[in-house]
C-alpha cells in the first residue's frame, strides 16, 4: 500500500520520459541487490556491532539519485512526494516541512543547481556534500533572486532505498531550517578628515538571510571603537534579501551620541583609525550551530 502511495506521487511528478543523464556506469548493481536481500526486517539481535566497511560504487549513485528526486519534488512543490522521502523521526521534521511549504508559497519557478558534489556511501550511511544555488522569482513582483550555500546530506539505507535522515550546513530545501546569513557592508575603508566633511560617507548594508524570507524588515547593529552604537533597519527587496544605509557624521571633536541614527566619528587624528563592526545575530545559522553573530568590520582612517 505504501508503495502505491509512492507510485502515485511518482506518477504525478514524473518527467515525461525516462532519460539517461551523464552518470558513470552502474558499477556493481548485483551487489546492491544482494545487499537489499540481506537487509531483511530486523531480528531480535540488537544493532550489528561491526558492519561491512565499504559499499559498492553503485550505492553512491543511488544515494545521489535520491537527492535529485528530492530536489525535483521541491522544485515542483510536490510536498507529499517530498514527505514520503523523509524519515518521520528526523529531528525538526515539521519545521522542515513547513519551511518547504513556505518556500513554495513565496518563491516561484524554483530551480536548484548543484556544483562540487561529492558522495561518500557506506553500507548503511551515505553523505553527500555539495554546493548549491537556488534561483527563483519572488511572488511579489516576480523579481529574480538567488540563494547559495553548501549542504551536507546524511542518508540512511532503508532496505533497498536511501532515505534522507538529516540536513547539515545550509539547508537547501527549507529556508527556516537554517542557512548562514551573508552580511556585506561598504565602503570597507573610508577617510575621516580631521576637518570634518561636507558630504560624509554613507554606509551601505546588505543582509541575505533566507531564513527570514517573507519578513519585511530586519535590524542590524553597528558598534564603533569610539563606543557609538546604532541599530539601522534594513528593508526586504526580495524574500530574504534586505538592504539599508546609515549616514556618518565626521568631525574633529564630534560627540558620540548612541542611538542617534547616524554613526558619529571623532576625526581627531589621535583617535583614528576607528573600526566599525556591523553585526547581525543569526538565530539559525545552519550547520547545527547555535545562534551566532555574523559580522563585518569597516575602518575609518585619517
Amino acid at each position, binding site marked *: 500500500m505504501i508503495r502505491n502511495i509512492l507510485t502515485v506521487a511518482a506518477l504525478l511528478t514524473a518527467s515525461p520520459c525516462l532519460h*539517461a543523464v551523464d552518470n558513470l*556506469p552502474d558499477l*556493481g548493481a*548485483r551487489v546492491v541487490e544482494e545487499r537489499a536481500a540481506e537487509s531483511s526486517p530486523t531480528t531480535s539481535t540488537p544493532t550489528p556491532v561491526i558492519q561491512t*566497511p565499504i559499499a559498492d560504487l553503485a550505492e553512491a549513485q543511488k544515494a545521489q539519485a535520491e537527492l535529485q528526486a528530492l530536489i525535483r519534488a521541491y522544485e515542483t512543490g510536490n510536498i507529499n512526494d517530498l514527505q514520503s522521502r523523509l524519515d518521520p523521526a528526523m529531528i525538526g521534521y515539521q519545521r522542515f516541512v513547513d519551511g518547504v511549504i513556505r518556500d513554495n508559497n513565496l518563491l516561484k519557478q524554483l530551480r536548484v543547481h548543484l556544483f562540487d558534489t561529492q558522495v561518500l556511501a557506506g553500507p548503511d550511511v551515505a553523505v553527500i556534500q555539495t554546493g548549491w544555488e537556488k534561483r527563483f522569482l519572488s511572488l511579489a513582483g516576480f523579481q529574480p533572486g538567488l540563494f547559495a550555500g*553548501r549542504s551536507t546530506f546524511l542518508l540512511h539505507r532503508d532496505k533497498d532505498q536511501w532515505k534522507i535522515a538529516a540536513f547539515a550546513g545550509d539547508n537547501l530545501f527549507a529556508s527556516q531550517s537554517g542557512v548562514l546569513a551573508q552580511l556585506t557592508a561598504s565602503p570597507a575603508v573610508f577617510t575621516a578628515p580631521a576637518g570634518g566633511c561636507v558630504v560624509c560617507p554613507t554606509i551601505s548594508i546588505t543582509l541575505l538571510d533566507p531564513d527570514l524570507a517573507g519578513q519585511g524588515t530586519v535590524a542590524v547593529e553597528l558598534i564603533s571603537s569610539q563606543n557609538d552604537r546604532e541599530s539601522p533597519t534594513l528593508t526586504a527587496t526580495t524574500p530574504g534579501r534586505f538592504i539599508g544605509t546609515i549616514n556618518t557624521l565626521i568631525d574633529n571633536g564630534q560627540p558620540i551620541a548612541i542611538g542617534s541614527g547616524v554613526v558619529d566619528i571623532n576625526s581627531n587624528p589621535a583617535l583614528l583609525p576607528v573600526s566599525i563592526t556591523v553585526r547581525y545575530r543569526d538565530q539559525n545559522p545552519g550547520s547545527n550551530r547555535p545562534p551566532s553573530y555574523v559580522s563585518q568590520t569597516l575602518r575609518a582612517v585619517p
Partner: protein
Amino acid sequence: MNPPFALVSIAFLLATPAAAEKILLADNREVLSNWQQSAGTPQTAELVKQDDGGTRIEWKGGVTLDRYNNRATGGTLLNPALNGNFYKAQVQGDLRATAPDGNLTYLQVSGTHSDDRALQRYPLLLQSAQMGWAGDGYQVALGDVAPDFSTLGTSLGMRGVLAQKQFGQSVVSASAGTLVPTWNSLADAAKRTQFLRNVVAAKFDMPVGSATRAFISFQSYADDPATLDRGLSSLAPASGRTGTVGFVHQREQLTVTGEAGFSLWTESGQSGLRDHAYLLDASYNGQGYNLRGGHHNLGVYYTSLAAQAAPGIVETYLGGNWLAVPWLTLQGDARRSENSAGDGTRVNATTTDSASLSQTIAFGANWPGLGLVLNQSLSAGKNADASDNRNSGYGAALNYAQPIWNTALGYNVRKVENEASPTADGQTGTWNFLLGRAFSDDLTNPTWRADLQFSVGMQDQQLDIGDSTRTIQYAFGAAASRVGWGSLNASVTLGKVKPTGGGADLHNRETMLEASHPFKNGNTVKVYARESRLFSGDPALENGTRSIGAQLALVF
C-alpha cells in the same frame, strides 16, 4: 594478511603490468554483457584472480568522457550555465583484496576533471577517496569516512580516519579528522572560505542483556583560526565538546532507542555555553500495522558532531500505518514542535501543532491497477509574537497502472496564512494529469520497448490581497530501446506563467534528445542535445541554455 602488507600488495598490483596479466577474465563475461544490454544499463567489468587458497583481487572501474558546447544567456542571476566548449572526465575505481581468512583490503577513488566552472569550481575535484582494511572484529578506514556513532553524538562525513575494534560483544569506535567542504580546500588555503574544523570522536558500545545495547560517546571539535586569512569568515571560530549515553533495544517487532547528551559550546572571545539534549524513539511493527513515536528535546546551545542534532528543537510525535481492511490503508502522523530558532524572527513559528492523514484505497481484483489516495494535513503554528502561522492542505490522486497503459489524475489544494507576512497569504490549487502507453514485443522479456507519455499540470495561486499567478505546463516524452541497439529519448515541455500583479505571460520551452548505443563489455556512446528557454516575454527575465555534446562511457 596484515594491513600494511595488504596495502603494499595493492600498490604493487597497481604499479606492475605483469600483475595485471595474471588476472583472468571471468568466463561468463560475455553472458553478463548481454544481460547488461537487455537490462538497459551498463554493468561493471569484473576482473577476478582467485588462485587456490590465495587472495582474491577484484577491480571495478569506469571512465566517462564528455565533450559539449553550451550557449547560455541571461547572466548568472538567472542562469548557472556558462558559454563555451567544455569537457568532463569522470574516473572511478574500486579495488578490493579478500584474503583466504576473510580479511578485506580496499581502495575506492572517484574524481572528475572538467573546465566547466558551473559544474565544479576546481579543475580536478576529488569526489571521494577511501581506503582501509577489515578483518575479524576490526576495521580501519582512511580518507573519506562517515562515522555514524549516534544521533546526538557523531554522525557525519569527514576526511580522516575511522577505526573500530570488537572485544567480545563490545565495540570500541574512534574517529579523527577534519571537517572541510572539499579535498581541494583542505589542500589549498587559498580555496577556503571557512575554518578547518578538527574533530575527534569515540564510542564504546556494549550489550546489556540479550536484546539491548548501551553506548557512551565523547566528541570534540575546534575551528583552527590559523587555517583562514583574517576577515574571510564572518563567523567567529568555535569549539565544542559533547558526551552522550544511550541505548538501543530490539526485541521482535519492537525497537526503542534513547540517548542523552551534554555539551559545551564556545565561540572565540566568549564564555562557554552548556546545554543538553535527549531523545527517545520507538517503533512497533505489528500484523498489518506499524506504530512509531518519540520525543526529541535539544537545547538551543546544544552542539555535537551529528548532522541530525538540530539545536533548539523540542518535538513529540506519534504516527503509524494501518491496513484497516484489505482495500484500505490509513497513514497518520501527529506532532507538537517547538522551534527556539524562531525566536528573534517574526515570520518563523516557535510552536506548532500538526497532523496529517492519508487513505490509500485499492479497488480490488475487479479493477486491477486502480487506486485512490486521499490526504489531509494541518499545521497550526504561533510566531514569537503569538500571531498565527498556519498552513493546511488536502488532495486526491486517482491512478491506474498496468503494463501497457498508465494514467493518473491528481488535485491538491494548500492554504497558507502567516499574520507576520500577510501579503503572501492565499490558496494554491494544483491539477496534474498523466497518460502513458508502452509498446513492446514481449512485456515480460522484451527485446524492444517504446514508451510514450503525456502530462499536463496547472497551478493556480490566489492571494488574499487579490493578486494571482497561474502556471501551466504541457509535457510530451518518448523513450525507445532495443537490445543491442541502444536507446533513444526525447521530450518537449511547453508552458506559460501568468505573473503576480499582471503583465504579459512568461513562456518556457524545453526540449531534449538523447541517443545511446552500447558496445561490448558494457561500454556505451551517447550523443545529446538539450535546450531550455525560460520566460520569453520579459527581456529582464529571459534566459536559456542550449547544450550539444557526446559522451563515451567505458568500464574496465
